[in-house]
């Protein structure tokens, strides 16, 4: 009999601790959930407004045959599109918003999430002069966009060719998608 108690007591205590933890986490989640969702929504709208300013955006149903790297596409009120693309950078996924106008030229890009190396690839997503200069190069581009090393027009960030390449690929995919939409 004693053996059974020896076995059950630790299990019950572990279960109790886990239940208390789950309960507390549930409460914290309830308090923070709406705020986290709001922040995500806000970040997204800000990024969309930054690349192509419009009153409202309407999501386009891409169907099943959309290219794998395209996440979402929106038609902006007053012409043009905003496309969310995810490419693989040097340290993992880079998600960006690409604005495209009715003439199929890029109006701007904004990197929403990335985990690139600080000081190198991370400049692509920073609100700094160097970051603005890098992203500014994409404005007005159309067709196939590539870094100068690959025979294109974009000057890659110093020490971050892979990041720059991934972003160029993303912009190219977005432009190609908009061609099929337009």
């Amino acid at each position, binding site marked *: 009999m004693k053996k059974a108690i020896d076995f059950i007591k630790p299990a019950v*205590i572990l279960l109790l601790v886990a239940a208390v933890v789950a309960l*507390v986490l549930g409460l*914290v989640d309830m308090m*923070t959930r709406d705020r986290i969702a709001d922040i995500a929504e806000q970040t997204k709208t800000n990024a969309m407004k930054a690349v192509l300013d419009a009153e409202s955006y309407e999501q386009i149903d891409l169907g099943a045959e959309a290219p794998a790297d395209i996440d979402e596409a929106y038609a902006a009120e007053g012409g043009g599109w905003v496309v969310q693309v995810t490419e693989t950078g040097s340290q993992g996924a880079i998600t960006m918003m690409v604005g495209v106008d009715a003439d199929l030229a890029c109006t701007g890009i904004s990197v929403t*999430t990335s985990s690139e190396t600080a*000081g*190198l690839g991370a400049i692509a997503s920073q609100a700094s*002069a160097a970051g603005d200069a890098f992203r500014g190069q994409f404005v007005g581009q159309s067709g196939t966009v590539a870094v100068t090393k690959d025979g294109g027009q974009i000057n890659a960030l110093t020490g971050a060719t892979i990041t720059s390449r991934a972003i160029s690929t993303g912009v190219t995919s977005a432009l190609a998608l908009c061609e099929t939409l337009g």
Partner: protein
Amino acid sequence: MNAKKQLTEGLITNNPVLVQQIGLCATMAISTTLFNGIGMGLSVLIILTCCNVVVSAIRKIIPGQVRLAIFVVVIAGFVTIVDLLLQAFIPALSSALGVFIPLIVVNCIIIGRAEAFSSKEGVFLSFRDGVFQGLGYTCVLVLMCLVRELLGSGTIGGGILNGATSFFTLDGTGAGIRIIPEGFGAGALVLPFGGFLTLGCLMAVMQYALRKSNEKKARKEKEVKE
């Protein structure tokens, strides 16, 4: 055990990173800007203190066989709370630290202190231990960040100083104060390479200093005896 002794242990003689040599992963991975360093350091400090207090409070009812599982659940709980709060209130920090916030669960510092200290000592002592060990961790992180950021990217205070809207900012737009002109930094220091190298050198400096002070102490004792 008095507070002063605990403080010197946490900061210097028993520093979690430089002397106990645990919790190295995150130390090297995120120490690229001051923002990351302070954010990670304070997160660990808070989680470590909370876990120490809880583990110490329930130490009498924890059965030996499942104590590690219970520590891990308690730690994971606090880590998730901090993770959610960061996502809600300092989203820039949360996205900069990424997967290294949930990974605090397996940071050996926290489970190490639970096993070695708070599961044996009283609540108040454990609380103080958490704060001081956390401070020791934060200091090393900040030091690593300062070295790597200054020599690597040429700035100080990246992420929190010199922001887009205000000088002191928490939205992650801070460009830092530029000390070395752009393009002249040793860029490799912000890469993984620099993480290993900087920590290795810091450890060597610490070992040198500790040995010197021990030798001095030994010499003094000898003189007293003579």
